[in-house]
């Protein structure tokens, strides 16, 4: 058997596995923004969530610790008094930058607080979509123990 054929077989096995594990279901792709969650950089995520490069703003509050002892559980919150329709939390140096995004319908406050994993010390970004534009705040969080070792 030649090498190329071998590779192809391996590839199709992996794809098949992903499909059976439910990683590539159609229903999910429609609701969950797969492309944005797979993007590597902060700018790419903002683009894929529908908007231009984010601009820094003092109106966005990012709550995160200076030092996280355990990278597996880092409390991060984002909040703004502006009329934001979407919020997002990103960790720059994670394998995929986007950690979570939130949709804020009328009647909800532009607020979200959750806990994320961080593989290493990194800048954390809070994004808020106001009038169709992304505004952001960032903070460096030092991680003493990574969240991906298990």
């Amino acid at each position: 058997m030649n090498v190329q054929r071998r590779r192809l077989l391996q590839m199709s096995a992996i794809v098949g596995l992903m499909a059976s594990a439910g990683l590539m279901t159609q229903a999910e792709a429609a609701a969950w923004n797969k492309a944005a969650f797979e993007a590597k950089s902060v700018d790419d995520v903002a683009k894929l969530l529908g908007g231009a490069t984010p601009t820094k703003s003092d109106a966005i509050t990012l709550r995160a610790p200076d030092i996280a002892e355990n990278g597996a559980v880092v409390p991060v919150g984002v909040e703004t008094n502006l009329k934001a329709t979407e919020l997002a939390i990103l960790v720059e140096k994670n394998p995929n930058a986007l950690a979570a995004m939130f949709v804020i319908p009328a009647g909800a406050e532009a607020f979200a607080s959750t806990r994320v994993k961080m593989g290493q010390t990194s800048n954390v970004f809070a994004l808020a979509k106001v009038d169709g534009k992304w505004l952001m705040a960032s903070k460096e969080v030092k991680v003493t123990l990574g969240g991906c070792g298990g």
Partner: protein
Amino acid sequence: MADPMRIRATEKDGVVDVRVLMKHDMETGQRKDAAGASIPAWFISTLEAKVGDKIVYAAQLGPAVSKDPYLQFKLKGSAKKGDTIAVTWVDNKNETRTDKTEIK
């Protein structure tokens, strides 16, 4: 069937504070087992909170959200004391779970 969520919703000065603790492994897909094989990703991908049939809050999570995800959000206007809030999550294996609580 997945384990139940813990939801606490309290109203104060017209703002409903909702805290949800979900029970889920949130496997990233980056980790390997003892034999060196990748552990497939398994995580909650979408979450929706409803009062009646109205969506009052929604979120999309990635595998970078911590194991047993915690989420806090605030409602102002779309819910009041005595309402029932229902939170539903769906994971990337299309498993789903809904839990409800009364806003106190």
